[in-house]
């Protein structure tokens, strides 16, 4: 009989039953009796001094409960940044304050100036329109290079400049790096932009603050990927509240892609205002608001240089990147262009000398922070594009060039601070070659050309680092948080199990996957196991879901807690069967004594734990509940090879993706169907970045793509049917499940494949084009073909 539960089975997602029936419980579904609504007065200009705010007329409007301005938050902390980057001179980054409501100045379109709490949402909006503000507009700071010039207008007057930090990783001796380039046989340089993106989760952000005067307890319901992190940041840094009096609940979360990691002003506001108004306060972002308030992603401008010797071995890489942080430091923003980007610059290749230089810049735009992949897509894109370029220049097979330079021995210490524990890049590439049918490409190209179109094939590899850890190392690198996770396995008397986890699904399917692991370990059906997550009052202190960490970090904590449970259960079983602990075996939910036919069922043991009549009370406590915290020894390193085939209509420049193959090594896999889904979604997002999406500001700091009329999201017909293979598996060497994480891979690996394919198609028709910036829109492709 095929296995029908546990690890490796494609169980259908149990949470989808409620999601598909419209029975999910999202934050906006939560309405607290007596709640009022807040609407924010947001800046319509990118940069201005606030002379005055006149709320007198607005205060008398119907339904208005209270109006807040920056003055109400003077004694309150600002939003903290969770990572202090140290620059190349050992100086800490410049860290400006980030107030809940603007203090004296606004710094991006959407910056909140005032907030009206009213009986209804429309009343709050009416009153916001009646607030009179007197602003002196200042020049917007948009272009990063301009922002770093000597006389640039400063986004934060109290800082020395618009430079947050100037950071270097890898070989810090410039002469050594230059020597490697001087000795090179061939050097290829590429300048490119990794454009800014809007995360666009399907569910916009929502916050509901509630305060109970009798118990002095706060509750914040919020759209978060990590409720404990929000509670800690908000209590310790912003509002100064005791954590034990604050409960943060993130119920079902409708997508996040990173942008729901961060602690936002609206969360702190609703918590603060609920007490100040003695009424629950609810904020629901409109889609328009989410375009100007959700932290955005990417936005790097990079020059990368790659040196090769006479045998085409990579000998050195040097990169210079300007990274846009926007107007303020969002929670993890500073770590993205540095420790999540520079550290990945070795890619899958054994380049001996690498130097990564990053200048992070303040501009009068929406803050930028982690977005699916966070730094790793930026690293992968530049590296895989420059490798593609050099292959074309030297007329080398791009796959062979990559294979020649692959890291093949593990563990491998990169020149950029990481140790890859395991991988098999040739094996993964073999899977890709088989799935992508490279041999058939020539025929497909000639078929396409017979139809008057161009066809291109793009290939690339990627490496990513998931489950960022261990805490002591990241602490040395500037992280102001630990990066462990936690799980509590609570076995009920009748044998069913509740698992309280620190990870929090925002679409990934934890409710399905996590029980598969516990079911496997105990040998009972998954239907007996339920996941509890998203509520700080129910779960142990875990760090949430991002960076493809849930199964690798929180899953490991769950394994450890389950092991503790099993060990204790074995002791109880041993007592029940009058045997020695060491002889007890657990299989298929039955405890047996080795070498005998004696056995007791899981349920009998659990019942004995809670009805301890026949129980070794002198040796062990009753009950069966264990908690484990798990701090990983290292990152995990999923890696893969992707191939994309495009067709281009030469008259219009329209690119269509005809084939897309992904071969990934995620180590061991708990639920193959869910992994497929994660890869599909990631590639869809990567194709969105490659072909469609662009968050653009004009020179005055107005968002040009502030709605779906101009911000192009990928739709079903923009993406092909994917061929996904994850049979190349080198298990992670340092976590108990041997898992690596799969959430971001697709978004990291796919953009270079698409752009490489477009360049291949254009060059096949004789166009002298070696790069087009994303999004590779029809008009850009057409323009490239005219030159």
């Amino acid at each position, binding site marked *: 009989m095929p296995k029908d539960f546990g690890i490796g089975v494609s169980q259908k997602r149990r949470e989808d039953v409620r999601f598909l029936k419209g029975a999910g419980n999202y934050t906006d579904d939560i309405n607290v009796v007596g709640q009022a609504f807040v609407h924010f007065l947001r800046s319509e200009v990118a940069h201005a001094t606030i002379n005055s705010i006149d709320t007198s007329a607005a205060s008398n409007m119907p339904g208005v409960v209270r109006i807040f301005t920056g003055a109400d938050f003077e004694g309150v902390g600002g939003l903290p940044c969770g990572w202090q980057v140290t620059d190349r001179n050992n100086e800490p980054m410049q860290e400006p304050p980030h107030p809940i409501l603007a203090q004296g100045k606004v710094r991006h379109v959407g910056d909140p100036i005032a907030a009206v709490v009213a009986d209804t949402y*429309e009343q709050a*909006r009416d009153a916001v*329109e009646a607030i009179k503000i007197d602003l002196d507009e200042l020049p917007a700071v948009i272009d990063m290079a301009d922002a770093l010039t000597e006389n640039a207008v400063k986004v934060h007057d109290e800082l020395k400049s618009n430079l947050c930090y100037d950071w270097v990783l890898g070989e810090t001796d410039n002469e050594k790096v230059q020597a490697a380039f001087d000795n090179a046989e061939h050097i290829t340089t590429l300048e490119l932009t990794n454009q800014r993106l809007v995360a666009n989760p399907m569910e916009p952000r929502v916050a509901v603050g509630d305060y109970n005067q009798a118990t002095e307890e706060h509750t914040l319901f919020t759209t978060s990927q990590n409720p404990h992190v929000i509670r800690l940041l908000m209590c310790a840094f912003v509002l100064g509240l005791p954590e034990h009096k604050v409960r943060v609940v993130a119920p079902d979360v409708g997508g996040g892609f990173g942008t729901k990691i961060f602690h936002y002003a609206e969360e702190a506001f609703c918590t603060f205002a609920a007490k100040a108004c003695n009424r629950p306060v609810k904020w629901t972002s409109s889609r*328009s608001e989410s375009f100007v308030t959700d932290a955005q992603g990417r936005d790097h401008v990079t020059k990368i240089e790659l040196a090769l010797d006479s045998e085409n071995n990579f000998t050195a890489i040097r990169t210079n990147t300007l990274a846009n942080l926007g107007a303020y430091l969002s929670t993890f923003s500073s770590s993205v262009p540095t420790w999540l980007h520079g550290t990945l610059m070795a890619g899958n290749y054994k380049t001996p000398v690498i130097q990564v230089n990053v200048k992070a810049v303040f501009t009068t735009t929406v803050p930028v922070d982690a977005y699916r992949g966070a730094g790793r897509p930026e690293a992968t894109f530049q590296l895989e594009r420059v490798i593609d370029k050099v292959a074309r220049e030297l007329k080398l097979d791009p796959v062979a060039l990559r294979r020649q330079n692959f890291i093949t021995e593990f563990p491998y210490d990169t020149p950029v601070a990481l140790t890859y524990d395991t991988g098999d890049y040739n094996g993964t590439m073999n899977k890709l070659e088989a799935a992508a049918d490279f041999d058939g490409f020539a025929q497909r190209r000639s078929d396409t050309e017979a139809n008057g179109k161009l066809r291109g094939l793009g290939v690339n590899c990627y490496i990513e680092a998931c489950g960022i850890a261990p805490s002591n190392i990241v602490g040395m690198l500037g992280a102001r948080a630990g990066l462990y996770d936690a799980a509590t396995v609570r076995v009920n008397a009748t044998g069913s199990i509740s698992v309280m986890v620190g990870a929090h699904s925002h679409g990934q399917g934890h409710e399905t996957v996590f029980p598969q692991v516990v079911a496997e370990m105990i040998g009972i059906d998954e239907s007996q196991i339920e996941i509890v997550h998203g509520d700080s009052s129910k779960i142990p202190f875990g760090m949430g879901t991002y960076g493809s960490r849930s199964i690798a970090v929180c899953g490991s904590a769950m394994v450890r807690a389950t092991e503790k449970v099993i060990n204790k259960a074995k002791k109880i079983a041993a007592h029940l069967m009058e045997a020695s602990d060491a002889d007890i075996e657990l299989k298929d939910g039955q405890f047996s004594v080795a070498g005998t036919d004696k056995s007791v069922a899981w349920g009998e043991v659990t019942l004995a734990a809670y009805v301890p009549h026949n129980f070794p009370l002198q040796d062990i406590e009753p009950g069966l509940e264990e908690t484990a915290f798990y701090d990983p020894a290292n990152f995990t390193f999923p890696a893969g090879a992707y191939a994309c085939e495009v067709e281009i209509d030469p*008259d*219009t*420049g*329209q690119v269509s993706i005809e084939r897309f193959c992904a071969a990934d090594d995620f180590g061991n896999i708990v639920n193959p169907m869910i992994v497929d889904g994660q890869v599909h979604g990631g590639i869809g997002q990567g194709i969105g970045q490659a*072909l*469609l999406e*662009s968050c*653009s500001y004009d020179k005055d700091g107005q968002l*040009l*793509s502030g709605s*779906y*009329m*101009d*911000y*192009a*999201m990928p739709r079903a017909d923009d993406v092909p049917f994917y061929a996904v293979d994850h049979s190349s598996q080198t298990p992670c060497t340092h976590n108990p499940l041997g898992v690596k994480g799969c959430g971001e891979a697709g978004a990291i690996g796919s953009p270079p494949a698409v752009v490489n394919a477009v360049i291949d198609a254009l060059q096949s028709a004789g166009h002298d084009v070696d790069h087009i910036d994303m*999004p590779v*829109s*029809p*008009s850009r492709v*057409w*323009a490239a073909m*005219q030159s």
Partner: protein
Amino acid sequence: MYDFEFEKPSSISDAITLLSSEEAMPLSGGQTLIPALKQRLNAPSKLVSLAGIPELRGVSVNEGGMLEIKGATTHAVIAKQASSHYPALSALASHIGDPAVRNRGTIGGSLANNDPAACYPAAVLASNGKIISNKREINSEDFFQGMFTTALDEGELITAVQFEIPTVANYQKFLQPASRFALTGVFVAKFDSGVRVAITGASENGVFRWSEAEALLSDNFSPSSLDVLTFSTDGLISDLHGTPAYRASLIKTLTKRAVIAAK
């Protein structure tokens, strides 16, 4: 939204009376107006729904042989009911937005709005159409007066639209990647009297006719007739999705494709 009164009359005359009050607006499919209201970009005192007026719905061929579509007929109904009379128009309607938009949005709402990237204006202009209002007939040449601007007076209602039916025609729409309106759209209609070519999505002045192409195609209805032309970039839209040069190129490419595809 701001507060407004809502009326749902059952005849055109009642609708006109209701629309005579200050700041009243017709609401047809609401696909443009409702989002604008939600963003508080409009503040009508009263919305007069056209959805309950039977005489504003239907597709038929009139005595003069023109295809007549009533003002509040939805895109979905046009796609279905115009297909035997005027396949190119039916095809155009069937590619507007998504099913929800097509089952709500109406031709009258689209023409009154005159979005520079909308589809119907090209069809109406290329078909030498007429806009029929509660008080007059307006030739398509006179009706479209630039981006979001038409000849309609305050309170004037589009009750029907008439199209001359060409022998062959085709609409080529190149999608703007985000909105999927026309980044540029070209409607070519061949009549016994000559060829008409109308372009949408491209010009800062909204829909227009390409007279040079019309002359050449009237002589010889072949894509190669256009080889000698280059479209000037003057006055073409420049935005995130395309430069004037790109739009000029699309105009020519799409016109050729429409000639080839015309049936």
